[in-house]
C-alpha cells in the first residue's frame, strides 16, 4: 500500500482532481467529510495541514505527498521533489504600501531594518540575507496583509495569486521572491525503496499534467 499525504485547504481539491484524473483510485476524495485517513484500492490518503505535509513524508508516515513550493521551501526538509504539477500556481512576493516602492528600486542596503511580517520566516530570512539586508522578521500565522495597515510592519512577504487581497489592503508587489506551484514529493527512503510504485504514480500524474497543458 502506498501512502499519499494531501494538503487540506486551498489546493486540496486540485490535488484530489489530479489523482482522480490520473486514474488512481481516489473517488472518496471528492467528499472526504471529516475523515483524515482514507483508504481506497492500494492507496492510503492522509489529509493534513499544508505545513505539516512535508513532515509526514520526512518521518516516513507517508511515501508521497502533494505540497506547495512555498511550504517545501519553508520546511527545509530533505525531500525529493519528483514533479511540478503546474497546478496551484502563485508567487511569493514582498508587498507593501506604494510609498515603499522607491526603497525597493534602489540599492539593497535601502531595505535594511525593514519590519517584514510573514508566515514564512525562513524564506524571508533567506531572501533578505541573500541581498545582504538585515531586516526584522515578524512571524504571523494569518491575515498578514493587516500588519502594515496596523503599523506592525513596513511590508509583508506572502504568497499572491491574483493580487486581489493586496489591492484591497492598499498594498502592491515590491519584489518577486519565487514562483510557487503544487509539487509531488517523496522521502529519499521511499524513492529508493519503492521506486517502481512511485514511478507509476508519478508517470500517471505527469501524463495528466501534460494533457492539461497541451
Amino acid at each position, binding site marked *: 500500500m502506498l501512502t499519499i499525504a494531501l494538503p487540506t485547504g486551498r489546493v486540496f481539491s486540485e490535488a484530489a482532481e489530479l489523482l482522480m484524473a490520473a486514474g488512481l483510485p481516489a473517488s472518496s476524495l471528492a467528499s472526504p467529510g471529516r475523515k483524515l485517513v482514507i483508504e481506497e484500492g492500494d492507496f492510503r490518503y492522509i489529509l493534513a495541514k499544508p505545513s505539516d505535509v512535508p513532515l509526514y*513524508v520526512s518521518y*516516513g*508516515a507517508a511515501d508521497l505527498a502533494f505540497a506547495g513550493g512555498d511550504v517545501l521551501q519553508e520546511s527545509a526538509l530533505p525531500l525529493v*521533489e*519528483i514533479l511540478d504539477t503546474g497546478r496551484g500556481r502563485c508567487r511569493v512576493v514582498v508587498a507593501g504600501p506604494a510609498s515603499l516602492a522607491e526603497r525597493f528600486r534602489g540599492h539593497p542596503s535601502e531595505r535594511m531594518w525593514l519590519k517584514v511580517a510573514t508566515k514564512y520566516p525562513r524564506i524571508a530570512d533567506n531572501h533578505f540575507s541573500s541581498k545582504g539586508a538585515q531586516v526584522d522578521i515578524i512571524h504571523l500565522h494569518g491575515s498578514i496583509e493587516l500588519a502594515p495597515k496596523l503599523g506592525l510592519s513596513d511590508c509583508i512577504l506572502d504568497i499572491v495569486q491574483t493580487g486581489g487581497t493586496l489591492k484591497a489592503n492598499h498594498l502592491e508587489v515590491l519584489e518577486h521572491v519565487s514562483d510557487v506551484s503544487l509539487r509531488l514529493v517523496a522521502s*529519499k527512503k521511499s524513492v*529508493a*525503496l519503492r*521506486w517502481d510504485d512511485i514511478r507509476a504514480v508519478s508517470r500517471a500524474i505527469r501524463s495528466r499534467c501534460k494533457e492539461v497543458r497541451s
Partner: protein
Amino acid sequence: MNRLPRGCANVGGDLAAAMEECKRVFLSLFEQWGYRPFLPSGLQLLESSWERLPSLFRQKLIAVNSPYGEPCCLRGDITLATVAYLASHHSPEERPLRICYSDRVYARAEKPRLAMESFQIGAELLGWERQGADAEMLFLLLRMLDEIGLEKSILLLGDATFLAKAVSEIEFSAAERIVGALQKGSLIEYAALLDEENIPDFYRAILQRIPELHGGPEVLEEAAALWGRGAPLLSLKNVVSTLTALGYGDRIAIDLSLVRELGYYSGPIFDVYSENYGQSLGGGGRYDRLLSLCGLQGQAMGFGLDLQHIASLSKFRTRSPSVMAWFANLSPDEALRRAERLATGGRPLEMSWCADRASSLENATQRGCSSWVDLSDGSTLDLATKADGRTLPGKEELPC
C-alpha cells in the same frame, strides 16, 4: 529548574540506557574485529577543518575561540578528526588502521533541526587496498544492526564515482549545479539543468537515467549498460556480491542517485534506514579523496550513525523491568553480599533500603519492578500477579 543552552539536551531514563547498550554492542563487536577506540578532541582548529569540508558543511560548523585564543570549531565531523590524527601519528608501516568511536558531534541548529549536539558512533578503516575492506566494514555494520534488534534495516548503496564520472565532461560550475540539484533532491531542477546545460549526448543520456536507477542488484547491470565499457561500478558490484554471499542480499538496495552531504566521498557510499522511520540513521562510504587531502595515499572506508536514533528504534528501547531486593533489616554488608549473587543472574537489580516490608513492596510497584525479593529468606513475589494476592509457587532459595 535548570535551563540548558538552546539546542542542547540531557538524555536520561530508558533512552540513555538504550544508547549505552547500543554503544556497548557496537564497541565490543568492532573491538573484537581489531578496531581500536579513539577519542578525538572536542575542539578542532578551524585551519585543519575548513579546507577539507564542503561549503554546505562549513556553514554548519560552530566556530569558537579556544581559551588560548586559537580559532577553533566544535567537532562537527569525527572522520575528519580521526584521519587528521592518523595522518600525523602513524607511519605508513602501521597500516591498516582500524578505529571505532562513540562521541558527540556539533552542528549549528537550523530549522527544522533544533538540536546542536548529537551522539555518533562510527568506525574507520584505512590502508587496505583491496575490495574486502569495503565489505568488512559493511558486514560488521549489518551485524551490529542485527544485534541491536534492527534486523530489518536497509543499507542503501550508491557510488560517488558514478555521478562524478557522469559530470566529468561538463564545465565545472555547471557540474556543481547538477550535483547540487540531485543532492537537494530537486529532480525538477535537475531535469531543467540537464536541458539547459551544454552536455555531450552520451553523458546527458546517463545523467537523465540516474534519478531512476533505484532497486536491486539488477540496477547495476542497467547502469553498466548505459556506459558500455568502463562503467565505474566495480567497487560497488564487489560490495553487493560479497554482502549477498554473506546472506545480506535482502538488506541492501541500490540508489545510484545517492549523494551524501559530506563532499569527500569517492567510491561506494551508503545510507542506513530502519523499517519504520523515514529519515536516514546515518551512513558513510569510501573517502580516498579526503585521505589524499590529508597527505595520505590509499583506500579508506568509514561510517557514522546517530546513536540516539538507532537506540530509540533498537530492542533496548524498552528496558526489561528490574527486580527489587529488600534488605530485610540485614546488615548492609550481608544484604549486598546476597544481592550480588542475585545480580549475577543478568536481570537488572535495585536495592531497597526501606525499613519495613510494606513500604518496600509499595516502592517496587511504583517503580515498575517485575518482582520483589526478600533477601532474608529469598522469598520472591511476582509483582504482576500480586494484585491477585498470590505469590510465586514455591519460594526461591537464594544461592547463599
